[in-house]
């Protein structure tokens, strides 16, 4: 009850105190994690096969299982917190969650706000379209001639902005942003966009679910490949711990097993 | 008992620059019924609302049973418990039954126990002839019935003086009689009353003293015989003549 009252009073103060809060927090989130015996991991479980829900409503997927393994190696329980993708970075910054795994690529803009673990997997980007699409796409920039769709807040989104929009290869109104990739897929099927740019692995999952799609091109374009776990900024202790766990899983072959399970051809 | 129940000394009320009434002096002895008559807009209603402190006068003093109620620091709520008021528009509490309307002051202000308050309230409703309607809501009562409940509600507080602000002006003609009858009985029973009204028949029959007010001042004051038969001022005679034509004769017919 007391916490609730403090919360309400804080809100009343906020209308007069609009100065941005500086980031505050414990010395390292790792101390809190070890003390509580659990790590709070944020994810956006709407991105098969990296993170999604099964028929029992349980979270599952490559990232999910990988993080569970990391938790085991760290000796702590994983507590999952699901939220829209756009909210995850802010949630780590504001210490609402300890870390986040959600098919994140390292990105310079993001690196100003949060920290990253070492890479745990290498992904690629891809462009998919309907089977009746006849354009010739030989290099990534070729897609600028068409209507594009992309999930907002992703590295693909940033790549399109920096390499196509800012370079005047495509007009901003021809790029449609989506909160989730499955929304983009619906618009692609409906013909509202011509090409969808997404991470290679979920794009493959979309192809499997939508026989009317085709893969135009896939390579490491925007993200330069690696996937990383998002950590609090400048938190060396937790970075060391998580990097160690990733190395262990790599050596033990666990990561390859999971890749085969979820990305297997 | 020499001290009058109500004494008003040099009372003045203004709204911005407009003078509503000024330099009013008035005395009401215990058991008397005073009727105030005069053209509309002469400040009669405002005067009443000053007496029970719903409005504050700008100058002057009011004494209730010798105690100055216009003094600084007076608890106005306590004063109003001792003065009963009946309104032109009845102003019954719409969400309460007749019985609950009368009971409310007893339970919330006098802090009576519920059963005791209920008995007392029923008694007052009987007195005004409405005991069969006590569980009805104001919306289910006629104007005359509502006004009688209003009188019962004011009486329930055992006031030292009752104020009536044009109590029958908003009533259909057939319903005026039942209210005037209650007021007549009340006056006969010895209640001290100040009544603002146009009902000349009532004034003539029931008043101990009539006050004629015009443009914010008292023009003339006297017994009914004095004013109706040999008024000193022509204006008084003029007014009484006109009004009696309109109201007085009708009242006589309806009795």
């Amino acid at each position: 009850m007391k916490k609730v009252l403090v919360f309400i009073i804080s809100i009343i103060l906020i209308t007069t105190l609009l100065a941005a809060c500086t980031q505050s927090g414990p010395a390292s989130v790792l101390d809190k994690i070890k003390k509580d015996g659990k790590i709070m991991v944020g994810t956006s479980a709407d991105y098969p096969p990296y993170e999604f829900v099964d028929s029992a409503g349980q979270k599952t997927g490559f990232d999910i299982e990988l993080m569970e393994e990391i938790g085991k190696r760290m000796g702590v329980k994983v507590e999952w917190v699901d939220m829209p993708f756009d909210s995850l970075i802010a949630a780590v910054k504001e210490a609402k969650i300890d870390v986040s795994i959600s098919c994140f690529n390292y990105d310079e803009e993001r690196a100003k706000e949060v920290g990253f673990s070492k890479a745990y997997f290498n992904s690629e980007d891809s462009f998919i379209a309907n089977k009746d699409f006849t354009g010739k796409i030989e290099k990534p920039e070729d897609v600028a001639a068409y209507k594009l769709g992309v999930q907002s807040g992703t590295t693909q989104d940033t790549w399109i902005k920096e390499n196509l929009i800012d370079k005047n290869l495509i007009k901003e109104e021809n790029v449609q942003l989506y909160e989730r990739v499955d929304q983009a897929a619906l618009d692609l099927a409906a013909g509202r966009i011509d090409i969808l740019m997404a991470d290679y692995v979920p794009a493959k999952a979309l192809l499997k679910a939508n026989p009317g799609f085709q893969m135009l091109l896939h390579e490491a374009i925007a993200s330069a490949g690696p996937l990383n776990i998002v950590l609090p900024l400048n938190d060396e202790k937790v970075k060391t711990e998580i990097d160690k766990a990733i190395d262990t899983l790599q050596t033990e072959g666990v990561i390859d097993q999971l890749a085969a399970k979820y990305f297997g051809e | 008992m020499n001290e009058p129940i109500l004494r008003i000394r040099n009372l003045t009320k203004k709204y911005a620059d407009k003078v509503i009434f000024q330099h009013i002096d008035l005395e009401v002895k215990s058991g008397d019924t005073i009727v105030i008559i005069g053209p509309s807009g002469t400040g009669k209603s405002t005067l009443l609302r000053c007496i029970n402190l719903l409005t504050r006068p700008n100058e002057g003093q009011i004494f209730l049973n010798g105690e100055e109620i216009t003094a600084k620091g007076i608890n106005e709520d306590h004063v109003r418990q001792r003065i009963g008021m009946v309104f032109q528009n009845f102003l019954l509490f719409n969400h309460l039954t007749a019985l609950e309307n009368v009971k409310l002051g007893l339970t919330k202000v006098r802090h009576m126990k519920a059963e005791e308050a209920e008995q007392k309230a029923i008694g007052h409703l009987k007195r005004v002839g409405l005991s069969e309607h006590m569980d009805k809501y104001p919306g289910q009562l006629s104007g005359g019935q509502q006004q009688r409940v209003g009188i019962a509600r004011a009486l329930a507080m055992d006031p030292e003086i009752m104020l009536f602000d044009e109590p029958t002006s908003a009533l259909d003609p057939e319903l005026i009689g039942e209210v005037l009858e209650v007021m007549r009985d009340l006056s006969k029973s010895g209640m001290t009353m100040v009544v603002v009204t146009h009902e000349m028949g009532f004034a003539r029959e029931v008043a101990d003293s009539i006050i004629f007010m015009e443009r914010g001042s008292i023009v003339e004051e006297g017994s009914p015989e004095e004013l109706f038969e040999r008024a000193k001022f022509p204006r008084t005679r003029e007014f009484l003549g006109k009004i009696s034509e309109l109201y007085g004769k009708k009242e006589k017919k309806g009795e």
Partner: protein
Amino acid sequence: MDLGNFLSYIASGTLYTLGASLIALPAGLILGLLFALLYLYGGKVLSNLMAVYSTVMRGIPPIVLLFVLYFVVSGSVNLSPFLAGSISLGIISSAYQMEIIRGAIQCVSGGQLMAARAIGLSQTQAVREILLPQALRIALPSWSNEAAIVIKDSSLIYALGVPEILRRAQLISASTQQPFLAYSAAAIIYFALVFITTRLLGRLEQKLAIPANP
């Protein structure tokens, strides 16, 4: 069948939706009533303050306010997304409820208060015994509308990560690639909640109605 499991997964979000609404509505009512009374009877300074509060809170889209209240304030206090979201919804609703109650109080004729004071009731007693019972009856239809809005707006807390109906529908839609089914299920549940609520409040209205002759 898998479909049944998916649908029951969405339906179990109702717990959060109902919970959020059952926190937000009463919180909004208590605050809204307080603010309305302060606006009407609190003197010039408080009255102006309440007017500013009302204008600001009603002038910003609820989702924006939700983010501001949740992320910006979260620096000082740590509450779960569910609690923070629900309380924020309550604060947002309080501005709208304040206007509803204020309008309803102003509908009650001044004579009612005057008659109450005339029998010796204090201002507080008069407001409590005479003004509010009549005002709240007048406010009920508009309040019923606000209740429906709060239930529907509770879906906004999906953005904070609360696993309520809408978020669950989104996850199922992504997993199964069956958006129509997922969102139809969500729509039906929201509709049922709002329908039942407005029906119940309608019955309350009838029960409280003051009898009068036509």
